[in-house]
């Protein structure tokens, strides 16, 4: 083998390695997609599509069995919105502080803390919530139980924060220094520069951060299941102070006992498919935002 062909060999070997990786990911995704939707299709053979989509009761034990999506969707929406409301401002402010205001040492410490908190397993947070948060929420608001949407939201906010902070921080740091210097040269102070120049220039990355945070909240299962009480009912006006059940928690709670091939089994796959669609939707929105506001670099 000449030197030349040896190089070709290496080149092609690596190429095929990467190709297999790429195709593998795609294949797995396609398989999941096909599997989920095939099982959902089986569900709609016996259960009316509109009854599922607009049903207000999820009662797999009742006769006839009721599989209404709305209470679960309401639960997921409540904990997600409740998590995002505090997590977004806190996250963006922290990111601005780390990349613009803090000294290099403080920034390093903060960055380290953020990375570390991203690595806390969700079950640990859930356990913390169950022991410390649930009783406090109950006594503060004088409730029947402290296992509420709010409790889930707080845990989710803690979980979404590291994602929001680190992605926003990346976006803010990659705003070119020339823009900032130009703004200073025109006489703006630091606050004006952050508010009028840096944040608008980084809006694409910051939006991506927020959307990733939402995605994290929608998909989280364990921590939420441990603290929200899992009542499959549509909450009333006190939505954040009532117990709710999320889509993911329903799958986790019920998949254990469900017999293969029953309507209930297919129903769980169908809500899995609903989650899949929500995730795709969130990603599409993130892409659209990115296209609309190009990151200034």
């Amino acid at each position, binding site marked *: 083998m000449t030197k030349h062909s040896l190089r070709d*060999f290496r080149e092609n070997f690596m190429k095929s390695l990467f190709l297999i990786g790429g195709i593998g990911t795609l294949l797995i995704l396609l398989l999941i997609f096909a599997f989920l939707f095939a099982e959902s299709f089986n569900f709609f053979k016996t259960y009316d599509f509109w009854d599922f989509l607009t049903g207000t009761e999820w009662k797999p034990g009742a006769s006839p069995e009721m599989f209404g999506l709305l209470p679960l969707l309401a639960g997921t929406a409540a904990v997600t919105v409740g998590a995002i409301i505090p997590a977004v401002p806190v996250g963006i402010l922290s990111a601005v502080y780390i990349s613009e205001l803090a000294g290099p040492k403080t920034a390093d410490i903060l960055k380290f803390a953020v990375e570390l908190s991203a690595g806390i397993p969700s079950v640990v947070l859930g356990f913390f919530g*169950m022991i410390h948060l649930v009783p406090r929420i109950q006594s503060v608001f004088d409730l029947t139980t*402290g296992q509420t949407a709010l409790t889930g939201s707080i845990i989710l906010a803690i979980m979404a924060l590291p994602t929001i902070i680190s992605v926003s921080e990346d976006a803010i740091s990659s705003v070119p220094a020339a823009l900032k210097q130009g703004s200073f040269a025109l006489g703006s102070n630091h606050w004006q520069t952050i508010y009028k120049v840096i944040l608008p220039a980084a809006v694409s990355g910051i939006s991506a951060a927020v959307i990733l945070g939402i995605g994290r909240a929608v998909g989280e299962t364990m921590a939420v299941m441990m603290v929200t009480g899992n*009542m499959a009912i549509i909450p009333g006006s006190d939505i954040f102070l009532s117990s709710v059940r999320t889509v993911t928690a329903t799958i986790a*709670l*019920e998949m254990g006992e469900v017999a293969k091939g029953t309507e209930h089994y297919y129903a769980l796959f169908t809500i899995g498919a609903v989650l899949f669609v929500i995730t795709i939707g969130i990603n599409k929105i993130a892409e659209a935002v990115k296209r609309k506001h190009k990151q200034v670099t």
Partner: protein
Amino acid sequence: MKTLKIKNKKIVKTFAIQLTALLSVLLLVFSGIGCLGQNAGDSSVVLSGSTSVLPLAQTLSETYMNAHNETLLSVKGGGSGTGIAELIDGSNDIAMSSREIKDSETADANAKGIEPVEYEIAKDGIAVIVHPSNPVSRLTLDQLQKIYSGEIKNWKDVGGEDAEIAAIARDSASGTQEFFNEAVMNGTEFRADLITQAATGAVTQEVTQNSKAIGFVGAAYQSNSIKTLGIETNETTVMPTEENILSGVYPLSRGLYLYTDKNPKQEALDFIRFILSADGQKIVSETGYAPVN
């Protein structure tokens, strides 16, 4: 141009060869991993299912493994339904269950060539638990049913303080839940605002910290941080003591079961024999359950 074409052809050929080589290597590696898993599986016994049986199975397996180094027992929860489903799928060796196997499950198992064999290893009572500060100390089965169906919503209706009841139950994979449903609910539906927990430990945790809560757990989960209610039948109040559970006086008594295939692993069979032996049954009694032998 011509030489380039030839070279391209050669590249394509070597590429194809490399791809095949790579795939076969991957195949070898994965089949190797598969073999490893199988070898490990041969000397180990997997138990899964009811979280009511879990504490007992854990204590039993620890004692058993101390005496039998060669056997590796792995015990995990999941709920009775999960355990039996895994037995049917062949992903465990012994299913733990706090209810008897259903006809539909036996049929599923038979369809897959598995014939479940039942071993009753202990008797257990379901303890109805409340917060220690709750003044209520006993309920009738009828009151219990009304609380869980949502007919009774306030503690004052059963002799307690004026406070809303937080009714806690398990998820539907739980054998305790299923037993409670049969023994107490009499076909009525559970209330819609039922707090559902994924494990018995989560039920006791919430009852420990919530003065308005009521829950039900296996008798072995009773502790000082929660208060067990007596069940009132015919003017007398019975507590879930070992004696009352064994004699059947306590109305919420049930058997705890292990299920295996008709031809289980020798190690699994040896373990079950140990559980049913005098030594094993002594542990059953020490762990808070009632022995069967």
